[in-house]
C-alpha cells in the first residue's frame, strides 16, 4: 500500500524535472557558452571585475540579517510571553504588510527618506537640522539619507523582518514550559535559562529565519534600485542588467547567477550543519 501511495508524487517529480531542474541546467549551459553558442570560460573571467559587487552584496545582506535577528528575536520572545489574544493580534499585524506588495512599502520609504522628504521636513520643523548645524558648524539643509548603503539596508530590514520573526516565534511558542521550570528548579538564573535552554531550543527557528532573510537580501534588485539610486548596485542589479536591463549579456548574467547560487548553497549547507539537519522552515 505504501508503494502505491508513493505514486502520488510522480506528477510532481516530472514537474520538478521540467521546471526546477531543467531551468537550472539552462543557467549552467548559458554560463559556459559564448554568444554564438560555443563552449567558453570567458564569462567567468569577467566575474573577477565584479568581486566588489559580490563583497558589497554579501556585506549589506549580512548586516541586514544581523539587524533582523537583533530586532526579531526579542520581539518573538516577548510576543510568546504575552497572552493568547495579544499573540494572535501581533501575528496578524506582522503578516498584514506582507499582503501588500513589498514594492509599495519600499516606494513609501523613498518619499520618507528623500532630501526634501517627510523625515527631513520633520527634522526641520523640530529644529534638529539647525541644532546639528550650530553644533558642528556645518551648513546643511537636510540629512542625506536616500541613495546610501544605509537606506538599502533599511529597506532590506524593513521588508524581510517578518521572515525573521515568524519562524523564531513559531519555535519559541512551542517550547515546553516544563523544561524552563525544571531549569529554574535546578538553580539556573534567567540568563542561564535563556542561554542553556531557550536559545539552543529555538535555534532551528533562528536558522530558518536567517536563511529567509539572507537569501532575498543578497539577491534583491528592486530595493537597491529604489533606495540606493543605482549608486550601490548589488548582485541582483548586476544580473537584472544582463538580462532585462541596459547591458544585454545573458551569458555573463548566467555565470554571475551560477556563482551566486553556489556561494549561497555553500553558506546554507555550512549553517545547517549547526542546526543538525533540522530542515523545518516553519512559517505560519
Amino acid at each position: 500500500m505504501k508503494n502505491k501511495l508513493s505514486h502520488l508524487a510522480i506528477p510532481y517529480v516530472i514537474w520538478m524535472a521540467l521546471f526546477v531542474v531543467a531551468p537550472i541546467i539552462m543557467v549552467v549551459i548559458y554560463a559556459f557558452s559564448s554568444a554564438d553558442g560555443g563552449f567558453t570560460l570567458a564569462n567567468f573571467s569577467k566575474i573577477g571585475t565584479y568581486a566588489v559587487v559580490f563583497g558589497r552584496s554579501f556585506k549589506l545582506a549580512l548586516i541586514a540579517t544581523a539587524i533582523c535577528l537583533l530586532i526579531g528575536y526579542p520581539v518573538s520572545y516577548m510576543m510568546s510571553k504575552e497572552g493568547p489574544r495579544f499573540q494572535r493580534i501581533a501575528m496578524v499585524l506582522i503578516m498584514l504588510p506582507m499582503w501588500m506588495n513589498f514594492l509599495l512599502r519600499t516606494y513609501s520609504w523613498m518619499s520618507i527618506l528623500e532630501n526634501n522628504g517627510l523625515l527631513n521636513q520633520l527634522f526641520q520643523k523640530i529644529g534638529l537640522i539647525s541644532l546639528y548645524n550650530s553644533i558642528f558648524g556645518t551648513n546643511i539643509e537636510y540629512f542625506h539619507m536616500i541613495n546610501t548603503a544605509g537606506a538599502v539596508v533599511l529597506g532590506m530590514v524593513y521588508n524581510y523582518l517578518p521572515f525573521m520573526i515568524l519562524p523564531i516565534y513559531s519555535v519559541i511558542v512551542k517550547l515546553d514550559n516544563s523544561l524552563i521550570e525544571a531549569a529554574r528548579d535546578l538553580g539556573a538564573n534567567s540568563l542561564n535559562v535563556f542561554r542553556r535552554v531557550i536559545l539552543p531550543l529555538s535555534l532551528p527557528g533562528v536558522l530558518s529565519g536567517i536563511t529567509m532573510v539572507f537569501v532575498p537580501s543578497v539577491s534583491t534588485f528592486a530595493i537597491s534600485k529604489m533606495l540606493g539610486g543605482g549608486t550601490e548596485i548589488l548582485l541582483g542589479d548586476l544580473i537584472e542588467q544582463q538580462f532585462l536591463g541596459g547591458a544585454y549579456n545573458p551569458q555573463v548574467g548566467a555565470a554571475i547567477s551560477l556563482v551566486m547560487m553556489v556561494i549561497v548553497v555553500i553558506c546554507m549547507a555550512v549553517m545547517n550543519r549547526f542546526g543538525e539537519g533540522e530542515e523545518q522552515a516553519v512559517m505560519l
Partner: protein
Amino acid sequence: MKRNNTFMSRLFTVLVFLFLYAPIFVLIIFSFNAGSSNTVWRGFSLDWYRELFSDRIVMRSVYTTLLVSLLATVISTFAGTFAAIGFYAMRRRKRHLLTTVNNIPMMNADIVTGVAMCLFFVAFFTLWSSFAAWFNGIQSFFELPTRLTLGFGTLLIAHITFNIPYVILSVSPKLRQMDKNLVDAAMDLGCTWMQAFWKVILPEIKPGIVSGALTAFTMSIDDFIISYFTAGSSSSTLAMTIYGMTKKRVTPEINAISTILFCTVLLLLVITNVREIRQEQLAARRKALPTATAAEAARYDSRPSKGFSSRFPKFIAAAAVITLVLCTGVVASRNASKPVVNVCSWGEYIDESLIEQFEEETGIMVNYQTAESNEALYSLLKSGAGDYDVIVPSDYMISQLIEEGMLEELNYDNIPNYALISDRFKGLSYDPDNKYTVPYTWGTVGIIYNATMVDEPITSWEVMFSDEYAGNVLMFRNSRDAMATALLHLGYSVNTTDEGELREAFRLLRDAKERGVYQSFVMDEIYSKLEGGNAAIGAYYAGDYLAMLENNPDLAFVIPEEGSNWFVDAMCVLKDAPHKEEAEAWINFIASTEANLANMDYIWYASPNEEALESYPDYYEECYEEELDPEIYEIMAASQETLDRCELYVSLPAEIRSLYNDLWTELGI
C-alpha cells in the same frame, strides 16, 4: 524591576510595530492628497481613487495578480498535498533526494529562479517553433501555433513551481505526526487505499494543507521578481505595474491601490479573528457551564480552534477572493475580444487620451507598455520578455535593429499620414531608404538645473563631473547617453569608435562617481527628483524639461557650449509582429497632425509633422489664451543653428557595443 522590564519590552515591541506600519500609513494618508506629491500635503481629495478605477492597465494587472495567485494556490495545494503524501510513502533515500530538489526553489534566490525559468521557456519556445513548423509541414489536419511567447501561461507555471514547495513544507510535518498504524488499521478494516486516503489521511493533515495554501497565496501575491522574468509583456502583475510606475513620474494612484489592498486584507483578517475569538469565548463558557446546549457543544467540537483554521471565515475569505477576481475580471476584460496592438514606448511619452481616442475610432485596443531606455528595450526584445508590435526606439537603436533583421518593412500605403512628416526627418542615417520607420518625435539633450540651487547659470558639461555640486547631480541610467556626456565634455565625437577615447570618457564618469558627484543614476525618476528640489542638476531631454517646468518654474535648461546630441525617435514594427495591420493603423493615427499637436502639448517633445510643428504656437494660444514664449518654443523645437551644434547618434559596430556594455556594467560597480 520586573515591572519596568515588562514596560521596556512592550515599548520595544510597540516601536517595532511602528516601524513596520509607519510607511504604510504614509502611503494611506497621501492617497487622499489633492496634489500629486508624496511629501507635500495640499488638501483632501478622492481624485486618485477615481483615476485608479479608470486606469485600465492597473485594473488589468490587479486582475492578473489575483487570478494567477488564486489558480496557482489551488493547483499547488492539490499537487503539493499529493506530492507530500507520495514523498512520505517513499523509501528514505529516495525521499531525501527528492526533498532536496524540492527545496531548490525555496533556497534559491528568486532572481536565479526567475532568470532560469525565463531562459528555459525561451529555449523551449525556440525548439517548439521548429517542431511546429515541421509538424505543420507534414500534415494539414490542424495547425500548431509556431510562435509562443511568455505570458499568462508561463507566469502561472512559475507561480505553481515556487508555491508547491511551501505546501509540501507545511503538509509533511503533519504526515510525520500522524500515527502510521491508522492507515494500516483502516485497510485491515476493508478500506481501499483511496478510501484510506479520503477518510483517514486527509482529515489528519488538513491543518497543514490549509496553512500551506495560505502561505502559497501570500507568496504569490507578494512575488515580484519571478513574475518580472516570466510574465513577458502581454500580462503584467500588480507588482510589475507598480515597478514600472516607480520608474516614471509616480502618481498617487499607487497610494490608492495600497490603501485599498490594505483595507481589504485588514477586513478579512479581522473577520477571521473575530470569529475565532468568539469561538474561544464560547468554548470557555462551555467549560464553565456544563449544561450548555448540545447543539452548541457539537458546533464547537466540529471546529478545531487553533491557528487559522475554522470553516466559516475560510469560506468567507475564499468567497471574497473569488468575487474580487470576478469583479476585476469584468472591469478589466470589457474589451477582451477586440483586436489589439501591443505598443512599447517610453514613460511620459504620450498624451494618454490619444489611446482612448484611437480605440474609439478604430475599435482596436492598445496594450501600451513602456521601457526604460533603448538598451533596456533591446534586452527585452532579445530575451523574449518583450512581445510587441510597435516600438519607438531612437535613431542609433533603429539601425542596430535593422542590422540584426529585427524590424519589419512598413507598408506605407496603410500610412497615408507619412506624407505629413517633414522631409528633414526622412532619409536620415538610421533608415536611409525610408523603409522601416515613421518618426515620432525629435529633440535635444541638455542640462536641466534648478536656478535657485546653483550659484551661476550652467554653461558646460563640466558640472556633471566636477565636485562643485557633488551629491546633487543626476546622471543618465543608460550607457549611450551617459557616455555621451563625458565624450562631449572631452571634446570627442559621441559616435567615436576609438577605444582610448571611450576609456577616457569612462574614467571621467567613474572618477566622478567615486567622488560622490552623482546623487543617483536616473531615467524618468528625474521628474520627481528635480520637480521636488531633491537634486540641483541633471542631464536629460529637452521635452521632459518643459514638462517639469510646468511643476517647478525654478528649473532652467541649457545645451552646453561643448555641443550635444540630438535625436529622432521613430515608430517601427517588429519582425513577424502578429498584429501588423493594427500596428500600421496606430502609426498612421499617431502621425496625424491632430495627434501630433495633442502630443506636443502634453509631452513637450517636438513633432516631425511639419504642419503640427509650425502651427503649434497658434494651437497653444488657442488652448491657453496666452502667447507661447518663443524661448520655450526654441527649446522644444531647436532651430537649425542649435542642431548644427549637436550630433545625431549612429549605430556602433558590435565590438564597440560590447565595450559599452562592459564599461557600463563596470561603472555600476
